[in-house]
């Protein structure tokens, strides 16, 4: 009887979302009076593994294998299913991101489990097991009942508090059974930027739209991001035009983010754009058009030209420090 959490690592380190997952799972495990077991796959050192105990993991299972330092969907699925069986998992939890979206559906079929994906809170009811999730790309919330005995959840970022507890976790190595059939996909090469704050990790996001008018006009945005320690983002037409890289595109068809603060600069606030950013805690908009729809979704707004307002704002921020 347990809640099993799959914990991804990036170059051997865990991210905030992983600790959110453990906090969520340990609260759920308490409600159900069962244990919270975390599973890490890939090379992660002992101190990092142990850190999962700070948020309520009772047991940490560690699978290390050099073939598993990149995501191999079938192999990972086999491992998670094996651990789920060994630990008698009633609920298996993933992050609603790159790895969770790849693995949760496969694991669910293996375990004949129903899935609620992008869950935003602890269950409203344990019987029937009912959770909330966003639907219609942020436009509505649904209550979903999972009817199968084993349940799979993927947790939406920034939707639960991280809660520290006394660390009582034990770490155990787990030796999965894998065969060649699990490795039919192979990663040939990897290109990665290092040292750059990733958009999906950022608490502060500075985002520009077509209102910036020219790829040469992004200086003040980059400066604001640098001054605040934030990451850059953009609307779809901006990345389609090649003004900014594709990995900065946020919205319904781009990245979905939920930072502490989102600066929407020269962005009109189209519904498809909002689909990717409306879960941000605070939205601050600057737009020349006082009737721009973005002001209906923003918490704070300034009517004005970004090229004039931003340098003044940066100056004022520097003075306030």
């Amino acid at each position, binding site marked *: 009887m347990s809640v099993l959490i799959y914990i991804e690592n990036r170059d051997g380190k865990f991210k905030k979302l992983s600790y959110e997952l453990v906090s969520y799972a340990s609260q759920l495990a308490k409600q159900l009076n069962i244990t919270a077991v975390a599973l890490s796959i890939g090379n992660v050192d002992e101190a990092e593994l142990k850190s999962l105990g700070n948020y309520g993991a009772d047991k940490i299972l560690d699978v290390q294998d050099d073939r598993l330092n990149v995501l191999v969907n079938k192999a990972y699925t086999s491992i998670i299913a094996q651990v789920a069986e060994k630990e008698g998992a009633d609920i298996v939890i993933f992050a609603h991101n790159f790895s969770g979206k790849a693995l949760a559906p496969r694991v669910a079929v293996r375990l004949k489990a129903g899935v609620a994906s992008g869950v935003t809170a602890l269950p409203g009811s344990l019987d029937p097991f009912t959770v909330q999730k966003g639907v219609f790309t942020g436009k509505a919330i649904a209550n979903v009942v999972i009817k199968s005995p084993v349940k799979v959840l993927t947790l939406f970022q920034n939707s639960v508090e991280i809660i520290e507890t006394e660390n009582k976790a034990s770490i155990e190595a787990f030796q999965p059974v894998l065969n060649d059939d699990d490795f039919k996909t192979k990663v040939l090469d990897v290109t990665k930027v290092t040292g750059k704050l990733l958009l999906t990790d950022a608490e502060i996001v500075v985002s520009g739209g077509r209102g910036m008018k020219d790829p040469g006009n992004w200086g003040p945005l980059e400066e604001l991001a640098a001054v605040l320690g934030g990451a850059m983002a953009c609307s779809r037409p901006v990345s389609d035009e090649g003004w900014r890289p594709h990995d900065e595109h946020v919205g319904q068809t781009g990245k979905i983010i939920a930072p502490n603060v989102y600066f929407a600069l020269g962005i009109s606030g189209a519904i498809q754009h909002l689909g990717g950013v409306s879960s941000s805690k605070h939205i601050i908009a600057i737009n020349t058009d006082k009737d721009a729809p973005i002001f209906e979704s923003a918490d704070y*707004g300034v009517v004005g030209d970004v090229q004039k307002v931003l340098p003044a704002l940066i100056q004022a921020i520097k003075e306030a420090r």
Partner: protein
Amino acid sequence: MKILLCLSNVPDTTTKIRFTEDNTQFDTTGIQWIINPWDEFALTRALELKEKGTNIEKITVINVGGKATEPTIRKALAIGADDAVRVDAEPADAYFVAAQIADFAKTEDYDIILCGIDSSDYNGSLVGGMLAEFLDYPSVSSVSGLDIEGSEVKIKREIDGGQEHIHTELPFVAIVQKGISLEPRIPSMRGIMMARKKPLNVKTPVEAEALTEFVSYELPPAKSACKMIDAENLQELVGVLQNEVKIL
């Protein structure tokens, strides 16, 4: 090579969402239906590859849905898919849908199965992965590039902060996202005419369970009005960053 493309029929992205029957049903009155945006990207890529002269014999689209989804399926045919299958059942949940598609895919030897990373209605991000598992095929998700050279498939996968090039054995399931193709296409008049003659086969569903149920809906809490700050008084915005957002 043969490509199977999973198509979800979704409300236009600008739709105002409403519910009926005490907030237990999505209100479909007056809705404009479209091909799910990611499935459209996938279809566009499949056509680009076919036109490039790679050895693609056939692109089949499959949808699980009632008769009402046929105009959307016909649109995919008009854009350029060769034939279509509609599994005649309401798409009860992702598990049910994936089981239906798997049953069809088993009968034909498709080399590449394409799915969008998300369906813009229920935002599950589930069908592609579930389908791969039902079929015991390898799957690659977050695919932002797909190419074919001879019998070799080249895949680009987006990872956090970078990209990977991936080799896979066939058959496999590619779960695709933005970057996979250029602009989606608009059906031409000729395409629309031709689509009428292309096969759209209706398949009886197999026995499968739904493991989840969407029992009720709510709209997000209304947002409080935007607080407007004068462009001449940015001190006030700095105050917000200090006291409300707490980042200074």
